[in-house]
């Protein structure tokens, strides 16, 4: 399977329908790379025309802006918008809620106007259109799955239904955690916390969230954000439950179930 870059597409005189914005975690983090690969496999199978920016992609600036470094954010935004506008990008899909939020909500007033779609939303519409067909029997049939809301999808952008609708087709038993949807508890990574030691407290946020996840008795924690994925995986390890449950992105669950 070949993943094209925008530069390659342009050289061959074609333009993809979507730019797949991979994000830094999806590009470099070994765990998140699996999510990226799973999602590109889905795109490929369904026959969606897409390309990545490859080396021309840079951090959206989300962690810099939320840490308080507006200069760095503006520099990154300027650079990314220049690149995307030069390619005439219209539609963007991304597997990272942080990139999604920044490009969708914060780039327009800086001159970057695109239709930005999170991968869970795209998967939901592909399912609705009947373009995603699952294997007979179903890999996750009857398994207990609990979805962890990403703050930057949920509260930040009101996307609560799409990930849940996607999970419904797995024919699994979906269980909600005590705090879910608009009351969902953060994994602890947002606001650039991912990149620093947590402040002193009585417990870590990801451990608190992992306890809720463990309490559901689910075998799979479904995530929709590479950072939530890391935080939840670490939290579950801390609770020594890594043999009983695993954290999988919704893209991975679908990719593994597809015929």
């Amino acid at each position, binding site marked *: *399977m070949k*993943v094209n*870059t925008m530069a390659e597409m342009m050289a061959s005189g074609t333009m993809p329908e979507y730019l797949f914005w*991979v994000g*830094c975690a999806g*590009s*470099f*983090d070994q765990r998140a*790379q699996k999510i990226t*690969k799973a999602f*590109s*496999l889905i795109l490929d199978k369904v026959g969606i025309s897409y390309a990545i920016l*490859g*080396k021309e*992609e*840079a*951090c959206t*600036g989300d*962690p*810099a*802006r*939320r*840490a*308080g*470094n*507006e*200069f*760095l954010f*503006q*520099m*990154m935004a*300027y650079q990314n918008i220049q690149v995307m506008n030069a390619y005439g990008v219209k539609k963007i899909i991304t597997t990272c809620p942080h990139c999604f*939020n920044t490009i969708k*909500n914060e780039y327009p*007033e*800086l001159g970057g106007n695109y239709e930005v779609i999170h991968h869970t939303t795209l998967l939901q519409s592909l399912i609705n259109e009947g373009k995603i067909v699952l294997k007979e029997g179903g890999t996750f049939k009857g398994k207990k799955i609990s979805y962890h809301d990403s*703050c930057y999808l949920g*509260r*930040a*952008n*009101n996307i609560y239904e799409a990930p849940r609708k996607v999970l419904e087709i797995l024919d699994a038993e979906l269980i909600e955690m005590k705090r879910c949807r608009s009351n*969902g*508890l*953060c994994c*602890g*990574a*947002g*606001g650039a916390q991912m*990149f*620093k030691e*947590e*402040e*002193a*407290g*009585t*417990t*870590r*946020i990801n451990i*608190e*969230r992992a306890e809720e996840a463990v309490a559901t008795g689910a075998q799979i924690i479904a995530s929709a954000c590479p950072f939530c994925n890391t935080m939840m995986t670490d939290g579950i390890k801390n609770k020594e439950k890594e043999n009983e449950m695993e954290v999988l992105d919704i893209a991975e669950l679908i990719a593994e179930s597809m015929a």
Partner: protein
Amino acid sequence: MEMIAPLIFLALLGTAGFLFYKKATLIKKTIFLGKSEIQYNEPIRRWKQVLLLAFGQKKMFKNPLVAFLHLIIYAGFIIINLEVLEIIIDGITGKHRVFLPFIGSYYSLFINVFEVLAFGVTVVCVIFLVRRNILYIKRLASNDLAGWPKTDANLILAVEIVLMSLFFLMNGADQALQNVQAPHYASTGSFIVSSMLVPSLSTLSTETLVLIERSAWWLHIIGILAFLNYLPYSKHLHIILAFPAAYYSALEPAGKMKNMPSVQNEVLYAMDPSKAPTDAAPPTTFGAKDIFDLNWKSLMEAYSCTECGRCSAACPATTTGKLLSPRKIMMATRDRLEEVAQNIHQNKNFVDDQKTLLHNYISVEELRACTTCNACVEACPVSLSPLDIIMELRRSLIMEESNAPSEWNNTFSNIENNFAPWKFSPEDRENWAKEI
């Protein structure tokens, strides 16, 4: 006496109104010490928020029982004000129950509705006192409220109970006086709650009853006027400011951070010098170090906060024992505002007091604990945003003081040099694609 009473009443009403007006003007002035850089468009959507969040209390109903109890006090407050209107007209004109001749038999129906509500308010105030002081409810037992805030909360509930009791006593004595056909006490029929006081009141002499009725009447209205003037010093100011707070609350997706056009332009001019105007003045300050640097909406929100603590109960940092508590961010901002207002009041202009909101009221450790998850804004019944304040202070910390943990400095330099928060080579960004 009959001539003097309305004069005393008018003097009281005028003084209370004047004092409240003066304090309200000062608060308004203090709020507008903040910046006004944001446009608040789309009035229709905003009025919808006022209807849903403030009038309809939509978000309160996330906890239906507490919402119902709060609704009783809220409805009681609004509807019983009709009776206060009559009391004020009575006071000015020297008449007694001035509405009675106009609505006749409906009068007792109205008073009965007020009495039922007043009874409900009394019961709920007692329940709330028990919740605050006897039952252990984490957000109400929190250290955030140690000292004055806890007293303030109890005082509000106690005053409401006293005001409602005076209302019943006044009506009870009135009915006892009607029974002995005392002059000036026109027949109204029996009132549903206060009639229960009549048997014991009837043992008293007419003179004593008049004394009780008049005392209760005066204490009730004096209490209301005093309470009005207490509002600006109390968390109870929310009964007024919750409405504008709902109106100005964000319409955009909660994840969107406020842009800084000054920095945007600085970067633009650096990248593309041809776009720089020759007289471009560099921005003076970045983010907020003190209340003057915050948007006025944040300052109004600090005055609107009623310290219920739903934000902190939902905050991932607070609930895992971090120093940060979003409620405390709002309270600290208001405390600093009060201090600045006092300073301006005394010195005519603000005289530097060597203090700032950042550091003196809100510490670096608190700011560093925020995950920007928006749980606080979502939890707030009127969508106040502690997050806006936290972000503006963080901007000041980083851009004015270069005050960042070393890990963040590494992250910044990685983003700047390697275009990712980690130290990977940008050349390797698409390596994953070769592994499929």
